[in-house]
C-alpha cells in the first residue's frame, strides 16, 4: 500500500467526518441499510489505520459490494430514480473507504464527496445546509491539501483550505448574481407538481395531489394562545362559481381587485380578535391564509369581499404578514342581494338528479340549518366513504358521487354539499384552504403542510352570517379508507436533525435561535428566491437598459476583475514594499542615476567605497554625496531599529539635493 498520504492520521479522520456529515444532511432521504454497509467499510478503514486489522479480505470485499448492489436493486423498485441515484452515490462513497490504496483513490473520494454536497442542495436550500456545505468544502480541500502537503500541520491545512474557500467566494457570488440562470436540464421527481399549493379552481381529485406533499405551506405564530385544533380552518380561496364539474372563483373585474363595494365593515373596536403572524412559503400564487374573518393592515395584503386575504403580488419568496381575525364577526356582516344571487347560481342542465332529490328533501325541514344538518347526518350514516383514491366521476359529478360512487374526499363532499345547498336556495360556497396544522409546543408555532389542504363549505344563515360546514368531517370514522399516499405524508418537523428547538428553555440559545430564524428568513428571501427576474432587475439597476453587448461586457469585466484578484492572491504580484525596501530603492535610484552619468558601481563596492568613487568624479558634490552616504550608513548599519517612513523621506530629500546639483 502506498501509505505516503497516510502519514497523517487526521486525513482519515477528516474523510470519515466528511462522510458522516454528508450522510447526516441526507439522513431524511437515506434508507437505513446504507449505514451498515458504509459502517463496515469505514470501521475497517479506521481499524486498519490504527493497526488493528490487516488488509480487507478480497472475498469479503466482493461479498460486501455485491450484497450492497443487490440491496440497491431490491429497494430500487419502490423508489424514484432520484432516490436510487442518491442511494447509489452514498453507498459508493461509503464503500470507497475500503479501496483507499493510492492518492488517486483519495481524489475520487473527494470528488464523490463534492458531488454529494451538490446533491444535498436538491433537497434543501436552507442557510444551514449552505453553511454545513461550506464546512464540508473546506474539509475536502484540507484533504486535498494534506495529500499534497503532508508535512503541514493539520490546523495550518484547515486554515489554508478555509482561505482557498474564501477566495472562491467573490467568484461564486458574482456567478450567482450575474451569470444567466439556465433552467434545469432535467427535472427531479423529488418535488411534485403540487408544491405551489392550492390551485384557483377545484375539480374532483386535485386536492389528493396536495395530500401527498409534505412541503411546508406556511407557519403561524400567535400573539396569544393558539386556537384549538377544531377551529384551525385556514381560508385561502372562495370558489363560488360552479359549471357542473369544476368550482371556480367568480370573475368580477380583475380577479385580484377587492370587491370594496360589496362589504361593509362594522365597528371592529370591541370585537374579540385573534392576532397572529403568517409566514407563507413561496407559491407563486396570490392567495394568503387566514382564519375567519381575517383582516390585515399590511400594505401588501388586501382584504377581499369574500373575506379572504390576497397578496398584491404573487408569493415569489417566503413572505410574512400580520393578521387580525375576528371569529365572531361573521354574524354581523350582511349579504347583499348581488352576493346572494351569486351564491345561489347553479349550472343549468347538469346534476339534475341531485336537484330533484333536494327538491323532495328540503320541504321536510323547517329551517335551512336543519336541512344542512340532515345532509351531514346522511354522510355520517349512509355508506359514504372517505378515500383519497376515489373512482372517476362523469360529467354530472355530483350526481355520480352522491348516488353511485359515494366515495371521495373533501373536494367531493364540499362540492356536493355546496351544490345541494344552492338547490335548496341556501347561499353557499366552497372554501379551499388548509385545515389543522402541526402545533409545536416548545417554540409555539404552527406549521401547516401541503397535506393539510382541505375544502369545505360555507352557507349563509340569516342571523348567523356565513357558517362554516365541513361535510368531510361528518363521515363515519369506520368508513375512512387510508391510502398509501396518506401514509407517506408524514409529519415533517419531527425528523429535523438540526433543530435548536429543544434548547428553548435557555434564553440565550433561544434568542440565538430567533436570530438564526431571521437570518434564515433573509436567506430565503435574498438567496433562495433569487431568480432570473431579480437578476434582470439587478442588472438593469447596474447597467441601465439592457443590451446583450452590455451584459457580455459586464460579465467579461467582472470575470477579469475576479481573475485579477485571484492572480493577486496567488502570489504572482508585486508585494507592497516595506519601508526598508523603499529605503533601499532610494539608494538604488542614486546608483541608477549615476550610471546614466557614467559612474558605474562595482558589485562589491560598499556605500563608502562608492561614495568615494562619486566624489572622485564630482568633487564639487562631495558634501552632498557624503551626507547622503552617511545617512544611508547610519540608517542601514548603525541603527538597530527598523526604518521609519521619515527616514525614507529624509533620504529622498538628500538625494534630491544631490541630483539638483548635478
Amino acid at each position, binding site marked *: 500500500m502506498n501509505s505516503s498520504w497516510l502519514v497523517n492520521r487526521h486525513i482519515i479522520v477528516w474523510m470519515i467526518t466528511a462522510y458522516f456529515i454528508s450522510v447526516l444532511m441526507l439522513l431524511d432521504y437515506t434508507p437505513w441499510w446504507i449505514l451498515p454497509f458504509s459502517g463496515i467499510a469505514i470501521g475497517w478503514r479506521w481499524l486498519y489505520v490504527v493497526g488493528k486489522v490487516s488488509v480487507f479480505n478480497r472475498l469479503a470485499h466482493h461479498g460486501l459490494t455485491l450484497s450492497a448492489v443487490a440491496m440497491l436493486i431490491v429497494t430500487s423498485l419502490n423508489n424514484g430514480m432520484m432516490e436510487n441515484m442518491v442511494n447509489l452515490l452514498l453507498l459508493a462513497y461509503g464503500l470507497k473507504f475500503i479501496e483507499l490504496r493510492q492518492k488517486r483513490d483519495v481524489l475520487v473520494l473527494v470528488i464523490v464527496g463534492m458531488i454529494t454536497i451538490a446533491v444535498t442542495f436538491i433537497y434543501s436550500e436552507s442557510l444551514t445546509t449552505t453553511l454545513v456545505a461550506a464546512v464540508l468544502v473546506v474539509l475536502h480541500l484540507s484533504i486535498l491539501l494534506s495529500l499534497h502537503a503532508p508535512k503541514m500541520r493539520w490546523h495550518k491545512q484547515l486554515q489554508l483550505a478555509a482561505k482557498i474557500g474564501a477566495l472562491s467566494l467573490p467568484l461564486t457570488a458574482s456567478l450567482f448574481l450575474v451569470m444567466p440562470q439556465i433552467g434545469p436540464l432535467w427535472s427531479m421527481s423529488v418535488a411534485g407538481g403540487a408544491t405551489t399549493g392550492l390551485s384557483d379552481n377545484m375539480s374532483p381529485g386535485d386536492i389528493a395531489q396536495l395530500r401527498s406533499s409534505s412541503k411546508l405551506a406556511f407557519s403561524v405564530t400567535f400573539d396569544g394562545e393558539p386556537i384549538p385544533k377544531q377551529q384551525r380552518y385556514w381560508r385561502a380561496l372562495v370558489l363560488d362559481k360552479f359549471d357542473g364539474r369544476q368550482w371556480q372563483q367568480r370573475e368580477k373585474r380583475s380577479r385580484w381587485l377587492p370587491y370594496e363595494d360589496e362589504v361593509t365593515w362594522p365597528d371592529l373596536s370591541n370585537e374579540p380578535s385573534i392576532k397572529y403572524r403568517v409566514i407563507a412559503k413561496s407559491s407563486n400564487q396570490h392567495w394568503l391564509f387566514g382564519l375567519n374573518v381575517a383582516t390585515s393592515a399590511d400594505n401588501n395584503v388586501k382584504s377581499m369581499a369574500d373575506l379572504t386575504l390576497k397578496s398584491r403580488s404573487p408569493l415569489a419568496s417566503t413572505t410574512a404578514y400580520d393578521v387580525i381575525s375576528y371569529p365572531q364577526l361573521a354574524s354581523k356582516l350582511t349579504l347583499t342581494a348581488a352576493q346572494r344571487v351569486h351564491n345561489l347560481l347553479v349550472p343549468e342542465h347538469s346534476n339534475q338528479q341531485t336537484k330533484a332529490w333536494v327538491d323532495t328533501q328540503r320541504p321536510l325541514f323547517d329551517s335551512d340549518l336543519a336541512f344542512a344538518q340532515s345532509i351531514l347526518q346522511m354522510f355520517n350514516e349512509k355508506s359514504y366513504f372517505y378515500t383519497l383514491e376515489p373512482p372517476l366521476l362523469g360529467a354530472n359529478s355530483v350526481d355520480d358521487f352522491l348516488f353511485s360512487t359515494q366515495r371521495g374526499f373533501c373536494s367531493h363532499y364540499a362540492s356536493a354539499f355546496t351544490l345541494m345547498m344552492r338547490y335548496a336556495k341556501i347561499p353557499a360556497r366552497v372554501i379551499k384552504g388548509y385545515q389543522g396544522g402541526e402545533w409545536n409546543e416548545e417554540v409555539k408555532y404552527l406549521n401547516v403542510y401541503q397535506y393539510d389542504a382541505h375544502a369545505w363549505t360555507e352557507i349563509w344563515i340569516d342571523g348567523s352570517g356565513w357558517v362554516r360546514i365541513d361535510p368531510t368531517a361528518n363521515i363515519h370514522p369506520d368508513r375512512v379508507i387510508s391510502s398509501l399516499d396518506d401514509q407517506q405524508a408524514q409529519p415533517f418537523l419531527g425528523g429535523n436533525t438540526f433543530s435548536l428547538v429543544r434548547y428553548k428553555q435557555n434564553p440565550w440559545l433561544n434568542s440565538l435561535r430567533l436570530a438564526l430564524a431571521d437570518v434564515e428568513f433573509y436567506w430565503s428571501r435574498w438567496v433562495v428566491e433569487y431568480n432570473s427576474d431579480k437578476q434582470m432587475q439587478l442588472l438593469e439597476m447596474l447597467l441601465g437598459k439592457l443590451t446583450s453587448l452590455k451584459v457580455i461586457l459586464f460579465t467579461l469585466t467582472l470575470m477579469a476583475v475576479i481573475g485579477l484578484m485571484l492572480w493577486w492572491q496567488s502570489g504572482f504580484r508585486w508585494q507592497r514594499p516595506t519601508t526598508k525596501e523603499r529605503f*533601499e530603492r532610494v*539608494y*538604488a535610484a542614486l546608483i541608477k542615476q549615476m550610471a546614466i552619468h557614467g559612474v558605474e558601481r*562595482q*558589485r*562589491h*563596492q*560598499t*556605500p*563608502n*567605497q562608492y561614495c568615494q568613487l562619486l566624489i572622485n568624479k564630482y568633487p564639487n558634490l562631495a558634501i552632498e554625496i557624503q551626507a547622503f552616504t552617511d545617512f544611508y*550608513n547610519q540608517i*542601514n*548599519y*548603525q*541603527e*538597530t531599529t527598523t526604518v521609519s517612513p521619515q527616514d525614507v523621506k529624509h533620504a529622498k530629500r538628500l538625494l534630491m539635493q544631490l541630483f539638483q546639483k548635478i
Partner: protein
Amino acid sequence: MNPAVKPLVEQIDRVLLGKQHQIKLSLCCLMAGGHLLIEDVPGVGKTTLANSLAHGFGLTYQRVQFTSDMLPADLLGVSIFNQDNHEFSFHKGPIFSQVVLGDEINRASPKTQSALLEAMAEGQVSIDGDTYTLPQPFFVIATQNPLEHSGTFELPDSQLDRFLMRVTLGYPSVDAEKAMLLQSTQTLALQQLINGDELLAIKQEIEQVKVADAVIDYILRIVGKTRSDSNYAHPLSPRATRSLLAASKSWAFIEGRDYVLPEDVQAILPAVCEHRLRGSSQTQAQSLSEQLLHSVDPLG
C-alpha cells in the same frame, strides 16, 4: 582608529615597517579572541610581528620553535618521577602561558600539531588522564612557511579552521625596506601598552558593537555563495560564519566605530576565509577570497 588601539599599532609599526594593515588584522584577531596564523616565506618578519604582539599586550609569553623531531610532550609538558617523594610531578610545558608563539608550526609532525588542537579549541590540556586549564586569555600565534618549502607538514583542515585568521605579510615596499636599513640595528625596546584587564574591557566593548541586519545578511550571502558555487571546493562552515562576524565586530572597534559596516567585513574577509576556502591545497593562484569578495554585493 580607536585611541585604545592606536599606540599598539604604532609601536608594532616601528618594528615591522610598512605592514600596518597586517598589524591591525593581527590585533583584530587577538581582540576577537581568536588564534592567529602568520604565513609567509622566511625572513619577512613573522616572528617579529608575533613577538611584538605578545609584548604589547603584556601577557605571559612562551615561544616554541617547532621542529620535525618535536614531540607533544615538548609542547604540553611531562610528568617526571620525583625521587624525593616517590611521586610523578607534572612539569608544565611552554603551552602554559597566555600567548604561545608557535614558530614554524608546519615543521612539526602532525602528531605534535594536533597536540595544539585541544589547547586551541578547549583552552585546556589533558595529560596522563589529568586535565589542566590553560591561563586566560589564551592565544596561539603560529607562523608557518609556505608549503612549497621543503621540510614542512601541511596543517590539517580541522586545525586550520581553528585559526580565526591567517595573515600573510609579503615583502616590504621599497620605501619600507629602505627605512628598515637606515634604522639602527639596535633592537627597539617594546613596551607593554595594554594589560590583561584592559584587554578584557576591550573584548567586552567589542561584544557591544552593533551589527545591523544588512551586515548579517551580507555575511550570510557571502557564506551562501561559497556553498552554492562549485568553484569553492571547501565551503565556509558555520564556525567560519561566526568568525566572520566576530572579526568584523573587532575590526569595527579598531576603526573606532560601535557598529559594523560592510567595509569591516571586506577588510577581514581574506584573512578569515582564505585559509578555510583553500584548505590544505595551495595550488590555485588566484585568491579565492578576493574572488568571493567581488562576487557578492554588500547591498543585497
